[in-house]
């Protein structure tokens, strides 16, 4: 277990010496995952509203299928994105395989079903009275959806954070479509995977600790804003 202590020391050293390569990798990791989370939220939340607020045949099945996609292996998503963007694939002409862009696309594909499913759950958690009240006060469908979404804001935020967590922590997809190219598509997880394969356990764990610290910051900011704004309200 001394490796763990060593890893912490290494992590602190890397952070406080500001090792430029590690900093660059960390920034890239955050950039890719945040972009992916943003776009995925942009897609998932409206779709979740469409699913939740409409009654249609097969709605239950659709939700089950979405839930199934919680279990989609990153390798499978990686393969799919790869065959689409590879030279021989339908979008090969774009030539964006092994770039950060395609990593963002892959992560969006990976986390959108999860985010959609969780947002549907979040919306279902809002008491039906809220919807009735909004409608009875003259809200149109969009306005009503917005109101319900606001009531479900914490659960929706959790959905987005879980998507972010999945995006920032996954490695199979990142290697497969990003290629783990040093200085270009290497992220913290792919770097960890490389260091591990080279037997550098401490360094790898140190990178993992840095990743968790980043995630902690991203996740704490909203709850911090929330607390601040509720404090403002009370004044």
């Amino acid at each position, binding site marked *: 277990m001394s490796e763990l202590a060593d890893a912490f020391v290494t992590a602190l050293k890397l952070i406080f010496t500001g090792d430029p390569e590690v900093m660059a990798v960390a920034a890239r990791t955050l950039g890719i995952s945040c972009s992916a989370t943003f776009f995925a939220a942009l897609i998932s939340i409206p779709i979740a509203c469409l699913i939740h607020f409409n009654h249609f045949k097969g709605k239950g099945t659709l939700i089950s299928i979405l839930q199934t996609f919680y279990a989609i292996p990153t390798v499978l998503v990686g393969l799919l994105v790869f065959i689409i963007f*590879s*030279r021989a694939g339908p979008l090969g002409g774009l030539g964006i*395989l*092994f770039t950060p862009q395609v990593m963002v696309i892959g992560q969006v594909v990976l986390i959108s079903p999860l985010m959609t499913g969780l947002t549907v759950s979040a919306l279902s958690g809002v008491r039906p009275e809220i919807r009735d009240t909004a409608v009875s006060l003259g809200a149109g469908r969009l306005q009503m959806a917005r109101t319900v979404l606001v009531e479900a804001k914490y659960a929706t935020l959790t959905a987005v954070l879980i998507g972010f967590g999945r995006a920032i922590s996954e490695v199979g997809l990142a*290697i*497969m479509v990003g*290629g*783990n*190219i*040093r*200085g270009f598509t*290497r992220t913290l997880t*792919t*770097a960890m*995977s*490389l260091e*591990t*394969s*080279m*037997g*550098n*356990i401490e360094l790898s764990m140190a990178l993992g600790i840095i990743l968790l610290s980043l995630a902690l910051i991203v996740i704490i900011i909203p709850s911090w804003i929330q607390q601040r704004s509720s404090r403002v309200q009370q004044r």
Partner: protein
Amino acid sequence: ACSDEETSSPTPAATTSPGEVPPLPKTSRLKVATTTSLYDTGLWGYLEPMFEDKYGVELDVLYAGTGKALEWGIRGDVDVITVHSRSREEQFVADGYGVERVPFAYNYFLIIGPEADPAGISGMSPEDAFTQLIAEGESIPDVKFVSRGDDSGTHGKEKAIWASAGYEYEDVRTSGGWYVETGSGMGPTLVMANEMRAYTLSDIGTFLAYQGDLELVPLVDEGDILLNVYSVIVVASTKYPDMANNLVEFLTSDEIQDLIGRYGVDEFGRPLFTPCAGQDM
């Protein structure tokens, strides 16, 4: 499926591999860590059932990069390792983690690249080819070299070639965008080189396994420095030294050496390995 032999093993022995064993073994299990290239060619999938049948033991084959396989050996998590990096193997034995380094097969590395060969290295010696690559790479945008960059045996060999050609590896590494480090295994590196129409260094086994999907061709396949020796080492801390020695004996036995020498002929039309038990390589 899920198995090496169905897709890459050509021999009838593999298709008659024994069924699944229960997940909780009653007998003890011997663990061998092998470098990925030996595993991906299907050689271990081919040999494993023979060894298990012969000695009535469960053989667990774990594949990893050379660095990780050695790390497992150091920590005592495996009983035997088969890797291909002479200097590191010797260090491993010298440090007392391994009993003895026993070479049992070899083949050659290949420098491969696009058929058009924009750098024009076809037929050169490895050192000249590398010298040409760095020169062209820095000037012609079409020329790229993809490096494993993962401290594997293959990566070690690449570094050795650079050294032999008179370059500091650190200089090569930072010499520009033409030199791409993937930090991945041989397979993914080949795929990437193919996508980028780039050059790379590969062991012959993995290259042959991928050849169908690739537009790359071997450009340099001769030169002593390309020699790729696989050896087997019994880990010093093993709990089953006898069985571990059995495995070494098995690999170096005439019968198996003969099989290794013919492995791959059916599928690729040529053998993947040359047996070399007893030789100092």
